[in-house]
């Protein structure tokens, strides 16, 4: 019997928690577990599959884009010739975007996509349209 289970039973015996609460706590302990496995599972579950763009208002637009498409597109950027890439970077710099496309490495894409699950963009326009961009399953 592990420590947590013993502690719950002790709390039940002392009358600090009810039998119902003890059962719930023990059930919670019984979830498939191991810290490393848990982290792996949640990371896997958190990895979004699609990016959604929803526009509501006068017209309704609902777009679902597979994130694999983003991955493929990002990998294609690595095939852009150096001269063209320099031209893109300098044009972006002129527009005030200090972003170097050369810094995007294919190995970073998966991490980038995984972190997109926390992203949500909400835009309310004056004409009553609402735009929501988010990533999910």
């Amino acid at each position, binding site marked *: 019997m592990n420590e947590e289970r013993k502690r719950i039973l002790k709390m039940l015996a002392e009358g600090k928690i009810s039998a119902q609460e003890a059962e719930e706590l023990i059930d919670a302990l019984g979830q498939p577990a191991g810290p490393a496995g848990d982290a792996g599972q949640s990371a896997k579950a958190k990895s979004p*599959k699609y990016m959604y763009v929803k526009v509501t208002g006068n*017209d309704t*637009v*609902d777009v679902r884009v*597979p994130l694999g498409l983003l991955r493929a597109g990002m990998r*294609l950027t690595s*095939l852009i*010739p150096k001269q063209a890439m320099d031209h893109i970077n300098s044009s972006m710099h002129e527009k005030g975007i200090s972003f170097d496309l050369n810094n995007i490495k294919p190995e970073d894409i998966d991490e980038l996509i995984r972190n997109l699950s926390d992203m949500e963009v909400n835009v309310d326009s004056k004409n009553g349209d609402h735009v929501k961009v988010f990533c999910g399953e």
Partner: protein
Amino acid sequence: MPPWIMHLRFVNQRGKGIGLWLPIFLAWPILIALLILLLPLVCIAEIVLRICHVDLRLVSIIFGLLWLCVEMRGMRVVVNSRRHQSNIRITIH
């Protein structure tokens, strides 16, 4: 898995709709055959470009574009216009 079917659906203001199932899976064998036929030419073009010091990896770009097409599976676009009272739905399965 590459996309197999594209589903297009249009509903006009009178509520009449048209649904089209486009069998993309029929295009894949043609595309692959075309790719196999053109690949030697593309390879030669890439070698020539390399000799001319032009950094354009044609073979990689073609396969990258092919991968882009493969990853389109699951894409969905739904547009519902109140002004024109119409509905357009495009789904790639």
